[in-house]
């Protein structure tokens, strides 16, 4: 729309001064250049480098340029790798389902049950603020709650519900999932809230007038219209969980693994080519997942 509306000015200038037109045609390129340069240098180049290095040879001291497929053979041929990938996908699936459920209902409550915009913004900010604080601190904050002598255990023991503290609350897969939901739910709430706010309220009234029950309105009107938001939230949550190493490391106490954690361990042993091969496999997997989701939704239209 913008382009169409700006065109009259450009057409006007064209016959008068050719040079001015050519300058204004350069403007968008100049404006986009810093972004392109930064992403080129710190995103594209590093990824290309990883792809190259993944074929290199290495020993304990250094890397040697080469063309070997052994890093891939090692990665894909190992039973541990497959198990780790499966474990990471399992986390992704569970966390996705939980954040989608919680995120949808929180966003739905904010969008349809809070009557004033001011209150909506205040409550939305209440949800947002913790997400702007440190992830690690938010992970650590579960220790006094879930630990062996933590709040949950001591309360349960005190009221006599359990005879002795539950061991699997902290440093377990349960703790990992809980912390991930804690960390990542906002990434689901925000895009869903955004799409719900844009639903024309008259559509819901129309459905109601046509005799739809509350559930029918929800199922046949609200949820289909919220799908783009859910898709964007899904992209965020799935990619964050697939890339996670710190939550898995801290919250499982080293008892669980993820692909990124495996990579990090390889990196700390200076096995960069091995880590690079792993990175390529992980990147392809993540990009395939995102591409699959993007088939459902056009992000540019949703912003």
């Amino acid at each position: 729309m913008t382009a169409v509306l700006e065109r009259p000015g450009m057409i006007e200038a064209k016959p008068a001064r050719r040079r001015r037109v050519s300058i204004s045609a350069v403007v968008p390129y100049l404006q986009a250049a810093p972004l392109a340069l930064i992403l080129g240098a710190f995103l594209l180049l590093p990824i290309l480098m990883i792809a190259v290095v993944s074929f290199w040879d290495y020993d304990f001291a250094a890397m040697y340029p080469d063309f070997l497929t052994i890093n891939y053979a090692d990665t894909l041929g190992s039973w541990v790798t497959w198990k780790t990938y499966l474990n990471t996908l399992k986390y992704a699936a569970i966390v996705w389902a939980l954040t989608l459920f919680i995120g949808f209902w929180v966003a739905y409550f904010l969008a349809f049950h809070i009557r004033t915009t001011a209150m909506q913004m205040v409550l939305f900010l209440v949800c947002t603020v913790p997400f702007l604080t440190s992830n690690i601190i938010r992970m650590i904050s579960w220790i006094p709650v879930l630990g062996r002598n933590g709040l949950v255990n001591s309360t349960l023991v005190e009221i006599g519900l359990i005879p002795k503290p539950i061991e699997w609350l902290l440093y377990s897969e349960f703790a990992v999932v809980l912390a991930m939901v804690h960390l990542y739910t906002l990434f689901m709430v925000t895009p869903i809230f955004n799409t719900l706010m844009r639903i024309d309220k008259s559509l819901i009234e129309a459905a109601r007038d046509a005799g739809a029950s509350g559930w029918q309105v929800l199922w046949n009107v609200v949820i289909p219209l919220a799908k783009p938001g859910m898709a964007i939230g899904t992209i965020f949550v799935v990619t964050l969980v697939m890339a996670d190493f710190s939550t898995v490391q801290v919250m499982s106490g080293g008892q669980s693994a993820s692909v990124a954690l495996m990579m990090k361990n390889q990196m700390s042993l200076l096995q960069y080519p091995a880590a690079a091969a792993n990175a390529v496999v992980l990147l392809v997997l993540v990009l395939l997942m995102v591409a699959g989701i993007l088939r459902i939704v056009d992000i540019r239209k949703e912003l």
Partner: protein
Amino acid sequence: MSHDKRTVEFYVLAAFFALFVLFLYGPLSAILILSFQGENGGLTFPLNGVSLHWFANLFERQAVGDFGGSFKRSFILGLMVMIVTVGVSLLAGLAFRQKFRGATALFYLAVASLVVPSIIISLGIGVVFQQIGFRPAWYTSAFGAHLTWTLPFGVLIMFAVFNRFSPAYEEAARDLGASSWQTFAHVVLPMIAPSLIGVGLFGFTLSYDEFARTLMTSGTFNTLPLEIYGMTTNVTTPVLYALGTVTTVFSFLVILLTLGAIVYVGRRRARI
């Protein structure tokens, strides 16, 4: 669904929302309280007296790592990232209002920057620096690594802002004889100022808290999140909570200041 009477659905969802807020803030308040743990207290409740011992401990170099230095580095890095993110996102947002070759590719590159796992970017930048023979440092390699995380947020926000921005205002300004620079400085910029402040907040806080991308790129000196991350494995005293409280309070101050600035800018605009 604006009925006059609240339905059962409202109360169920309100309870759900309250639980969610408790879930978000409960653990955070637990470490807030426990950071005032007495000298002989441990990592869990009950409080063994109340003291500022662990806060004092924070500033002794041997107790934790280099808290002061890492905070300073993270703060400066956050400011650098913030300034560049605001500037570059604004320019890119303006660029995307027009058609240009490669616009779609650049847009998807920004999206890719958001979905590529942080640790891969960290590894990649680390290896690139190693190969060209540059020494990684928090103000070079980590700076670039952080930008790959903050810029997509900034660009997407600006994209959304300009999607809703009516060109009528600019046309009105132009009809009144404003030059394109005047139109930008006096019409466009004041209107998008609150969003720009929001982008700045994102830039700063995302960088200030980022550590997956800093892991391989920070060089010799740690940033604050790396310092905290290191502490999770080897510090077993409430000094960890004291550090958590200090950084969280700092984050809250930054957020409050930003919101204040947004409200102030909005008010000033309303007055004019």
